């Protein structure tokens, strides 16, 4: 029984995906509305009064950052909510008392949550395209490989963080704290709305400590071929980090952290 339990893995993956796909009003509508607001206010209203940044119209410049923000917070939220809610109501026992291997369990939770992040990213891109068209701004994906690779890696990374969050949380408040007080501030100071060139020292240098800088700039490089950081290095580091966090997830499941008395 050492082979990978494909049927069990697929079943849990399917369950996890159906859980959110069947509730589109909870899953896909909120990020759509939020981003319509972002694009309207920052892109159109403010963007009309802001000069180009690094040679791009402001609305185009913020598009990659908004995609990153939506993707990672949804990937994180899905994994953490699904695991925490299952613990809270104890139905996660259906999974953890089953013969699924720990690796299968973790990968199913992560892949489903990452997919949600990517779907939300696609929705935001769709909203962005509409606004670009309305403002007569041309768009292309300059570096498709980097764009796809960065999107995939950051969605997986935050889904994996979400697993840790879901295991660690003792209460629904914990999840709110993680999302609102950690992820969002890091993203907002992570170069979504500005280029590092426009901020003064020491904040510019300090910003390089913020991991979000690398994600936002990676995706921006994929779309616009422009980045404040070295995209190759960023991709390697983020990929490594993702693998480490996935390994931590599997370890926590093995140990039964937050799951087993």
């Amino acid at each position, binding site marked *: 029984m050492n082979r990978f339990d494909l049927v*069990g893995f697929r079943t849990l993956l399917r369950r996890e995906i159906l859980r959110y796909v069947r509730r589109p009003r909870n899953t896909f509508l909120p990020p759509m509305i939020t981003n319509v607001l972002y694009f309207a206010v920052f892109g159109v209203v403010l963007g009309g009064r802001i000069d180009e940044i690094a040679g791009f119209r402001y609305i185009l410049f913020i598009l990659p950052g908004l995609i990153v923000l939506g993707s990672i917070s949804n990937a994180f939220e899905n994994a953490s909510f699904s695991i925490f809610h299952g613990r809270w109501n104890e139905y996660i026992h259906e999974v953890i008392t089953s013969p699924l291997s720990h690796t299968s369990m973790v990968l199913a939770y992560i892949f489903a949550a990452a997919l949600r992040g990517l779907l939300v990213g696609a929705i935001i891109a769709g909203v962005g395209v509409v606004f670009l068209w309305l403002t007569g701004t041309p768009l292309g994906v300059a570096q498709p490989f980097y764009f796809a690779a960065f999107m995939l890696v950051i969605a997986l990374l935050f889904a994996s963080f979400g697993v840790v969050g879901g295991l660690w949380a003792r209460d629904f408040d914990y999840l709110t704290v993680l999302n609102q007080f950690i992820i969002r501030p890091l993203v907002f100071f992570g170069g979504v709305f500005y280029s590092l060139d426009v901020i003064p020292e020491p904040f510019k240098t300090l910003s390089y400590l913020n991991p979000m800088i690398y994600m936002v700039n990676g995706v921006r490089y994929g779309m616009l071929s422009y980045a404040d950081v070295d995209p190759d290095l960023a991709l390697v580091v983020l990929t490594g980090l993702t693998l480490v966090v996935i390994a931590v997830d599997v370890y926590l499941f093995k140990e039964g952290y937050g799951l087993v008395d």
Partner: protein
Amino acid sequence: MAEAIRVRDLRKNYGDVQALDGLSLTVEEGEFFGLLGPNGAGKTTFINVLVGLVRETGGEAEVFGFDVETDYREARDRIGLAPQEFNVDRFFPIREVLCHKAGYHGIDHEEAQRRADEALKTVGIYEKRDTRFDWLSGGMKRRFMLARALVSDPELLILDEPTAGVDVQLRHDLWDIINRMNDEGTTILLTTHYIEEAERLCDRVAIVDSGRKVEVASPDELMSRGTDTVDVGLADPPTVAPTFDYDGVVESRMAEGRLEVVTSRGGALVPDLLRDLEAMGHEVTDLDIRRASLEEVFVDMTRTDSSVGGSSEAEEVVQ
């Protein structure tokens, strides 16, 4: 015969509470085994060790020879559990919940659907298949718990107080289903604090208290350790009970105009008793033997134990 469950010196501490305190027991393959004990005895903790919801503090546990920790996948694949508390996925209709459960056991989607329908029919809630668990009535919820345990066609079916708080009709339905499973070869581990349930269903019963095994025996054996009462109707009852001085008579007394002879020899005493009564000039109108209930034996055993272990429930039962 192979062993379905084998645990040795199992311990589990929650802080100062010793939920399991050196529990050892063996359940044979194909057996209908009962775990009888007062609330807080450690029954649920024991089961949770087997399925991996509780990590033991010490000792060993194997299911069909597979260690529940190192070979957890093999062990869990053979177990179907109906837990005491409801823990069902609320996002999906019950038929899908069953399909998921089967899927986790490696059963492909088509077959899982077939099994789900079959399990729902077995427990009699097939027409509710598209309903979510939260919308089922209390009795249907219990039925569903059993369906979920059955859907993977387990070799070992574990039922943790499956009939707690259900009505008589449902209790008998559930008993029928699990009896049939047992007849077809499924090993059954049932925990209960209803003596009648253990007495009716189980081949062997372990009495546990304070995380330890007090006794293992068949219900009949256990009951034979208790005393029986021979209840005699007399045409002209005396006010004072006659005495009998042979082996096995524990007490002789009058109760509501009838003679009650408490004996450790049961029916074997009756011929002697009848002869003596006749010799004394009494006319016997009817005679009935009341066997010790398992409950009395159980209370006796757990009371003795709790004077050491400190469990209060058993003492409350005695008073």
